[in-house]
Structure formats: C-alpha cells, structure tokens
C-alpha cells in the first residue's frame, strides 16, 4: 500500500515538473499601435511595435517584416524591453517605437507585422494624411499666391479680418482699462497722502462711518463733557491705530501714538491733559480750548 502511494507520488511529481514549463510557455504576440490616426502632411507620428513573448521561445528579432511603410520616411527609432516574471514564467515585452513622416497625402494602412519563419502576425493600423495646414504668415510661394488672390476677392466684411479687428479692439480696450486703473490708483494714493503721513491712517477710508460716530464732540453743557471727550478721542485712536485704549492711561496712549508718529500729537496730548485735570483735580478747564483743539485735529 505504502509502495503504491510512493509510486503514485513520484509519478505525480515528475508529471508536474515536466508539464509546468509546457503550460507556462506562451505564444509570442505582436501588435501595432499608432499615436494619431489623422495627421497633416509634414507632421510626424509614432508607430509602436509591441512584441510580447516568453523568454524560452526562439524569436529572431531581426526578421520583422512590416508592410505599408514604403510611403513613410523613418525619422528615428527607439527600442525598450521589459522583462516580467510571474509564477515561474518569464515574459519579455519589447517595444520598438518608430517616428515616421508621410511622403504624401492620402489614406494608408500599415501592417500587419510578420515575423519571419513563423505564423505570428500583428494587427494593422490605418492612418489618414491630410493636406498640409499652412499658417497665415507662412512665406510659402504657393500660399503667397493664394493670399494675393484672396485679397483681391474678399469683401469689406471678410470673416478673418473682422475677427482680427475685433481682437485688436478688445486688446486696445484692455490696455486702456489697465492704464486708467493705474491712474486712478495713483490719484487715490495722492488723496490718502494728503491726510496721512509716514504710512499712517491707512484705515481712515475704510472706517469712515465709525469715525463719524467718534468724532462727535459732546455738548458743552454736558456734565460729563471732559469724560466724553476723552472717551471719544480714545475710541478714535483705538479704531484708527489699533491701540487698545481701554486698559491704558493717557500717558501710555500718548507713548504708543508717539511711536506711530501721529501728526496731531501735541493737540491730543493737550486735550488729554486738560481732560485729566478736569476729571481728577476737579478743575474748571477751558472747554472752548478743547473745542478749538478738537477742530484742529479733525
């Protein structure tokens, strides 16, 4: 019994080892690929010859025969090989890329590709070569003739000319708009410079509404006139210079303003001094003077 099993196992093993390369072996495959199916005369295109075969096969790469290439001029050729090993089988993929240029216009068929002494052959590819597309300014003799003749024949509202004129006006308009914008920006800069010095008060234009509220001078009869004046002035400074005046004393606010080189510094300093004296020393300060200074600042 044991001998029978042993014999069966050896037979199975030998059969497996013999059959494996046979089944693993694949036939060679060839195919043709083309980069463009329709091109103009004078343009080049790529033709790729892809050969896929097992490394154990005896394939002679020198015996490639491609039909239909007589109408094309070969500009260059490039070859790349990729080897793949999978489940013990080695596959080689060779790709030959030829850059071709058609000699004349028309519809051509390239292929099939045949390998000599074998029955292996590829697909065929079809390519359409159109008439050469000349550019508008190309100084080709033939074209010059066509152009001169068209000049004679065209109407006043020639389509191409109309598009070109339209493009010209569009470009002119864009140029004018850009120049105008630069001029406007320059004018705005000049206006801003009148109201500010040393790059200060950048936010004045943006915060007009807030300023209007803050710039209100309290009523002279108001009991808390001095307190409100200082409060409004502090809010103005807070809004326009980004200084948090709530937790700062007059001196600290002035020190920070000094750093920013505010051009009405002395007026603000005097208003603060008068307000502080009126509030903390119960003194009767000159309200008219504060009004005068206030108007001087704003």
């Amino acid at each position, binding site marked *: 019994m044991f001998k029978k099993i042993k014999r069966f196992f050896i037979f199975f093993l030998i059969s497996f080892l013999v059959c494996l390369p046979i089944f693993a072996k694949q036939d060679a495959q060839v195919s043709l690929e083309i980069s463009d199916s329709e091109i103009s005369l004078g343009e080049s295109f790529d033709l790729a010859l892809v050969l896929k075969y097992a490394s154990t096969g005896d394939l002679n790469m020198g015996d490639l025969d491609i039909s239909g290439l007589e109408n094309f001029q070969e500009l260059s050729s490039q070859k790349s090989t990729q080897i793949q090993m999978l489940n013990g089988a080695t596959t080689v993929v060779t790709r030959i890329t030829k850059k071709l240029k058609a000699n004349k216009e028309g519809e051509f068929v390239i292929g099939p590709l045949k390998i000599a002494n074998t029955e292996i052959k590829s697909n065929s590819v079809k390519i359409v070569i159109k008439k050469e597309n000349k550019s508008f300014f190309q100084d080709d003799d033939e074209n010059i003739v066509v152009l001169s003749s068209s000049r004679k024949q065209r109407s006043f509202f020639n389509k191409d000319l109309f598009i070109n004129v339209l493009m010209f006006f569009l470009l002119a308009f864009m140029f004018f708009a850009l120049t105008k914008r630069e001029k406007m920006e320059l004018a705005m800069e000049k206006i801003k410079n009148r109201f500010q010095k040393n790059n200060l008060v950048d936010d004045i234009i943006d915060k007009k509404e807030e300023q209007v509220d803050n710039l209100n001078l309290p009523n002279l009869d108001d009991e808390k006139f001095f307190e409100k004046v200082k409060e409004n002035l502090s809010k103005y400074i807070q809004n326009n210079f980004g200084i948090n005046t*709530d*937790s700062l*004393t*007059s001196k*600290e606010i002035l020190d920070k303003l000094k750093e920013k080189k505010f051009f009405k510094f002395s007026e603000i300093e005097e208003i603060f001094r008068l307000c502080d004296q009126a*509030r*903390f020393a*119960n*003194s009767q300060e000159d309200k008219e003077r504060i009004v005068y200074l206030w108007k001087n600042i704003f």
Partner: protein
Amino acid sequence: MNEKIKKTQELFEPKKYILDNIKKEMACVIVGQDNLVDRLIVALLTQGHILLESVPGLAKTTAVSTLAKILNLDFQRIQFTPDLLPSDLIGSRIFNPQNNSFYVKKGPIFSNFILADEINRSPAKVQSALLEAMQEGQVTIGEETFVLEKPFFVMATQNPIEQEGTYPLPEAQVDRFLLKTVIDYPSIAEELEIINRSEIGFKKDLQSNISKQDVASLQDICQQVYIDESIKKYIVDLVFASRQTSPELKNLIAYGASPRASIGLTQASKAIALLNNRAFVIPEDVKEIAMDILRHRIIATYEAEAEDISSEKIVKMLLESVKVP
C-alpha cells in the same frame, strides 16, 4: 483746580526741596537705582514698610542705611540669623537683684529706622515679633506696652536665591509690608560709573539738615493729596479683579489681594503724585506703583507655578484687563 488741591500744593511747594535733597544725596552714594530710591521715599511718605528683594550686591543695605543717615534718624541694623530670638529683637525683662525687681531692656526695634537684613534667614517666631511693631507701632514686653517713636520705618531685605536653610515669610507677615520692590541689575553705563566711583572712593559725608519734623510734615501733606472717586473706584476694581477673577485668571490665583492692598495702593498713589509734583492722583500714579503693592499679596496657584506664571505676570494681566478711568 479746586481749593483743597491748591492748598495742598501751596503747602508742598516749600517742602519740595526735602524730596529733592533726599534724591540728590542718595545719588551721591547709590548709582542709578532710581526706582529703588523712589520706592524708599514712597514708603517713608506713607509711613509704610518696604521689603526689598534682589540678588546679593545690588546696594540694598547701602541704600537703606544711606536714607537713614540723610534723614538724621535713629537707625538700627539687625542681621537676621537662624539662632536669633524674638527677645533679641524687641527686648526683655531683666531681673535687678539690687531692687529685687524686673526692669525692661529695650531691643533694637526701638528706633526710627530698622533694617532687617536677610529677614528670611530667621525662623517664623522672630519674623512674627515684628508683626505688632509694624502694624500697631507698639511693642509689648511682658505686661508692658511701649509705643514706638515716629517715624517708624522697617526696611527688610531678602535674597531670592540660596533658599536652603531659609524661612519664607508667611503671608500674614508679608502683607504687613506696604511695598515689595524687586531690584534689578544696573545698566552698563551705571556699572561703569560704579567702578569709577569705587576707584576714587564713595562719598561718606552726607550733607543733610532734614529733621524729623520735616519728614512728619511731608507725611501730613501726602495724606492731604486729593484722590478722585473715579480713581478710588479704579483701585477697588483692580483689587477686586484679583479676587473675582476672569475665567483666564481663575486657575492662576489662589488668594487675591486683601483690603490692606486697597489702602496701600491709595496711599502709595498719593506719594507717587507728590513725587511727580502734583497734589492730585491720576491713573498713571496707580499703575506705576500697583506692581509693588500687589505682587506679594497675590498668591499664585500650583498650576500657575507649574506653568511658570509668577505673581508679577498675574498683576500685569490684571492691569491689562481692568478699564482705566
């Protein structure tokens, strides 16, 4: 300016030279340290006590002894050591065998100026012996109570480093000090001047004719300096902010400032106003002295200490959060 302020200003004008003299004479001995000199004068004017803290060698002791000399007042320096006893400070009752009775031997605390040098080197019982003297201006020895002569002024120094073998002042003791001033290193120019003066010798003969009466009159004028209700409200807001803290400070403050801080801040602001030749207080005066009044009265939490947030930082945060009138 109202009449009260004018009157105070008129009273102060003829006495102004005293403050100028003190500053001038101090400048002959102490190079720079204007902040320290100002704080000593504030403590003198408000009849408060001052705790000076700095690393060694920044002229703490020299400044205090110089001020005592300028003012021609009795001066006692007590070097606090671990074996110092309360009786060494305030005095004790000694038995007299001739009369078969006890008599009181007064200690060095019976003086106008007390310099408690390195106060944190003595145990708490000695530090506490100063409590009654500092707060009440009196000392009890046995059954007898003695009123201390005015002006009575305690200036204590402590070293923030070398903490081994020291006894940190308890909160109740620290609160007795009106000001806690931290002295910083001198600037480059000041240090160069210190070297130059050390070569030619520091001035030792101080010319001053300031009397006890002059000091007392200045203290009276300081009391009369006008402080507006809005400033008082600002002071209370600051102190309250340390107790009812905002969410961001809540985890940083264990104990806020006491009412003694409000009183101290009011008095010290008046002195600052006087130093600035003004007979009324403005918010700048409060802000200028707030750090020295509050830094030792706000106790930071363990969380704050863990995050390296000192009481100074907390006071700064308070000053930045309270609205100035």
